[in-house]
């Protein structure tokens, strides 16, 4: 099977690498410091396919820290704020779309 990294990658705008943390499944983002953060604002931004592949390869290599990493689009505001680039990522960032049952 062809590795995802060997497949052709199309990047149409600013992107990040995201995954779930191995120990608890929490949503995490790859940072420029080659680490992970739960804050999207800490994410490393890439703009070319080569840079995205390199960032993703780093993430995949950290099998102990993260599960199921992939490249996701983001939008950068005029003040530099990073926002999710699609609905899925918006839900992953902000949590469930309904209130969870609360204990009495």
């Amino acid at each position, binding site marked *: 099977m062809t590795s995802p990294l060997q497949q052709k990658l199309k990047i149409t705008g600013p992107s990040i690498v995201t995954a779930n943390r191995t120990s*608890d*499944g929490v949503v995490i983002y790859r940072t420029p410091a080659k680490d992970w953060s739960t804050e999207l604002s800490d994410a490393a931004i890439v703009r070319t396919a080569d840079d995205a592949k390199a960032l993703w390869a780093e993430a995949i290599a950290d099998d102990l820290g993260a599960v199921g990493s992939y490249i996701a689009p983001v939008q950068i505001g005029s003040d530099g704020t990073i926002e999710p680039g699609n609905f899925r990522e918006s839900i992953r960032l902000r949590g469930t779309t309904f209130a969870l049952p609360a204990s009495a």
Partner: protein
Amino acid sequence: MYIHDEFDRTLLQERASEFRDQVQRRLSGELTEDEFKSLRLMNGVYLQLHAYMLRIAIPYGTLSSTQLRMLAHVARTYDRGYGHFTTRQNIQFNWIKLSDLPNAMADLASVGVHGIQTSGNCIRNVTTDQWGGVAPGEIDDPRIWAEVMRQYSTLHPEFSFLPRKFKIGITASDHDRAAIKIHDIGLRLHRNGAGETGFEVLVGGGLGRTPFIAKTIKPFVTRRDILTYIEAILRVYNQYGRRDNIYKARIKILVHELGIERFAREVEDEWQQIKDGQLALDEAVIDEIRSRFRYPAYEKLTDNPAELKQGFEDPAFKAWYRNSVRAHRVPGYGIVTLSLKPIGGPPGDATAEQMDAIADLADRYAFGEIRVGHEQNLCFPSVAKRDLRRCGAPSMRSASQRRTSIS
């Protein structure tokens, strides 16, 4: 309730211990995610959008109050204080940490509950009527047959890697409360012209992106032959089911593409070769399984007690009774549905406090037994009608509180 034997108890303890070792090896880096994924899925552990999810099987939807309290304990200790009852008589914990899973699994195993075969391309938790054994007019208690299937399918080596997941539903009533026509195999217990009890076998039903209603493949299969016939269906599916496209891999697609007549011929050919083999069911085996089901010691009661007549003077109770209480096979008793559908909220969620409260009510009024139905509600299968007001009042109050909290 079904009384598990030593084999079941040992199996679950060993499985919990094995899973603890697998999780430790994953967290230490000894196992990669690729190596670990199939192991966690075999124990009902998924990775979803926000977190890991643990799915626990509730065979034929029957829970003891002790088991429900343990589910509450797991929700409170390892998750976010609630659990989600599903359309297949399972419960899911949606926020559990991988590092907490071994302890959660061990706690669950201590009361005979597990996540085996709640995931993966195997025969999943066999489901049936949540009113099995208490509804009037049943041919037999369908849970006995669900237990036969459970014992047959648990860790079955030939059917652990089917083309896709495989779901079996059973009903023993004219009114199908198990939704058997949307299962890969649906079984309807009925009597033939000679008065003999057997099964109508349906195949190829399912929902999802390509919904199909199951078709009858054989109108009558005897009790002796039911396992061999199911095995023949599974073998044909295992051989011809598509493995190249996940969206075309369910048996409903195979049945649709081959046509029910050709599919039935293939099954018949296979069945003729195995029907007198080891899986031909001896009545003694069925009786042994039947004997492990315990039924409440029902009292001889009037069907219309004074307490009930008095209760009907209260319009709230009357409305609750009309919506939530159904006839029982034993006079003087009723089946009570507890809705897990708050207005405006997702169906099937129950907090740990609600589970504990329901377990307490079950101990007080319902012989310590709770059922989970495919409509994502719970029910008390047996409540004396004289106790309905006391048993129903907390349910009415909690329903009203849920509505208030949503609005």
